[in-house]
């Protein structure tokens, strides 16, 4: 069942077309992230859902109910802001009580619900404190509690972790995700941090310049990006240009590249001769020193029938990153490829290496 439907909304400010025909169906209890660089329209989309902005055209449905024209206070939303937006002149308990008083919840009931939600965000005993007496992470949890205590039908989060330091941010990701799953509330989360979107979301909406680049699960978006810009935005990736030489079954292709023929996976329906880019994630490439592998320089890329590709190149740069070494390898074609290798087994700059990767770990992008 769809809890929330965004149906072809458009928004313009003067000449700027901020949102172009944005449609997103969101299921009951799903955690959906709107991800993209600043100015991509993700915040505007969230503000349209909240009712702080009104789309020029299109509809927004909460369940079956059309809320496109409804005021924010009529929508039954809970919202967490980047600045937390706690009421500074009210204690934690008064902040939480605000939404309940507006809803005319009886005092005894109010107290019980405030106590429950404070326990949920692990802030028991903080009810008499003022926001300025709390740390950033605690304020964040109060903001979350304030949004949840009214038991809204949708929880909206606008970059809530942007003001926290890195350690706390990591902790809060899991905290929010865990809480969201326990409450089972449909949530929409705006972020520009792809790692955050990856670990928290059921679905990610990748946005760019007012349009949706891709809508899918974190795995789909990481492994099967719809375009080069998505591949570039989510994690690190390498691309090698080529032409489709032959289709092999549903999604297998043989691609002709300057480095030789490479077996690759891609979306169905790519036609022979089409220009493509082969995307390979750095962690999916294994290396061996050329001397050890015994391969000849510039050997044919694909090892027949095995689904394994082997490319030869030379190491041009090596960066120690603790858990791994990041190598830059220059291929015979002149393309540079980033590879993660085990940090304990470094390869020297200038060394000849063989890069190995499976066809199933690649993905073809239209170029």
């Amino acid at each position, binding site marked *: 069942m769809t809890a929330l439907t965004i149906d072809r909304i458009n928004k313009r400010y003067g000449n700027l077309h901020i949102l172009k025909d944005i449609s997103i169906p969101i299921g009951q209890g799903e955690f959906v992230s709107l991800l993209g660089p600043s100015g991509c329209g993700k915040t505007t989309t969230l503000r349209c859902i*909240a009712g702080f902005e009104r789309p020029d055209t299109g509809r927004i449905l909460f369940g079956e109910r059309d809320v496109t024209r409804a005021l*924010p206070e009529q929508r039954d939303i*809970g919202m967490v*802001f*980047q*600045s937390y*937006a706690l009421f500074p002149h009210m204690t934690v308990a008064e902040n939480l009580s605000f939404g309940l008083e507006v809803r005319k919840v009886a005092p005894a009931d109010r107290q019980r619900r405030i106590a429950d939600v404070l326990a949920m965000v692990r802030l028991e005993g903080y009810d008499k404190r003022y926001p300025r007496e709390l740390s950033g992470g605690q304020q964040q949890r109060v903001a979350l509690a*304030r*949004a949840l205590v*009214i038991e809204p039908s949708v929880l909206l989060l606008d970059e809530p972790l942007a003001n926290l330091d890195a350690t706390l941010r990591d902790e809060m990701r899991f905290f929010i995700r865990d809480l969201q799953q326990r409450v089972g509330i449909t949530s929409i989360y705006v972020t520009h941090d792809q790692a955050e979107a990856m670990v928290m979301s059921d679905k990610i909406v990748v946005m760019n310049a007012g349009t949706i680049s891709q809508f899918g699960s974190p795995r789909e978006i990481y492994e099967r990006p719809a375009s080069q810009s998505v591949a570039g935005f989510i994690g690190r990736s390498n691309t090698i240009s080529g032409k489709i030489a032959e289709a092999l079954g549903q999604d297998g292709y043989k691609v002709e590249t300057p480095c030789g023929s490479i077996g690759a996976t891609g979306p169905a329906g790519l036609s022979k001769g089409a220009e493509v880019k082969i995307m390979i994630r750095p962690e999916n490439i294994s290396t061996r020193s050329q001397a050890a592998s015994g391969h000849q320089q510039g050997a044919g890329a694909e090892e027949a029938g095995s689904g394994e590709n082997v490319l030869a190149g030379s190491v041009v740069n090596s960066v120690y990153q603790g858990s791994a070494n990041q190598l830059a390898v220059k291929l015979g074609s002149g393309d540079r490829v980033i590879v993660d290798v085990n940090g304990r087994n470094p390869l020297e700059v200038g060394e000849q290496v063989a890069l190995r990767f499976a066809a199933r770990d690649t993905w073809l992008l239209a170029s």
Partner: protein
Amino acid sequence: MTGATSGVEKTIWDRLFTVLVAAIYIFLMFPIVLVVLLSFNSGEFLAFPLEGFSLRWFEALFSNKRFLDATLYSIQIAATSTIVNAVIGTLAAIYVARHATVARDYIRLIMTAPLLVPEILTAIALLFYFYEIRIGTDYSIGIQIGHIVVTFPYVFLNVSSALFNFDRSQEEAARSLGAGGWMTFRRVTLPAIKPGIITGCLFAFVISFDIFNISLLLKSLGSNTLPLELFDYLRFNFDPTAAAIASLSIFMTFAAILIIDRTVGLRSLRF
């Protein structure tokens, strides 16, 4: 080592600077201290040397009906100006901060004009205007409007700065929690800008209590504000009753500053 280049230790320049600042303060505060001292002097004249401690001039002040009437009249005018400005100054600040778009800077300039235009010019302009619309100076309304106009910017500017420093997402948070526009204003916006309103109001009151030019030109017949009464008195008398009045005014100003500090804190005074 020369000059103030050393880090922590105090140089001769630091000391000289301290002395200079102290001298400026003494220069500024001395007349005030003098007036207060003279008001407790038992001598007949507003002059040195001091002869002895006495409260007789305060007694004279409080038994003088004209001074009492003038004090009450000044308080009434100042209180009315304060209350009216609390409302229209706040509304104007909200309008300029939230709703004015293209003409915002011009509107802001017009709103603060009474601070920039010499008071006497404002007074003359209002005087002409009141005669033009046949109010003249027959009623208190003229002087009252004059005081409201001149003290308006104090509330306007203080509330504007409070609004400028206010994070509007608090209002959005209130709306998301189900509060309507009025409730959001009453329970979230108003408490946030209250320090600005209080500060602006206290300024408005003190300034209105002190205004001379406007009152001189616009006062209605038979009623004097305290500064005017004091001026009249000093033209023919030179006894320390005047100093007693001045002490009273100084006391009121200090009381106002104390109230600001105790309620909203002097640090909230920003323009």
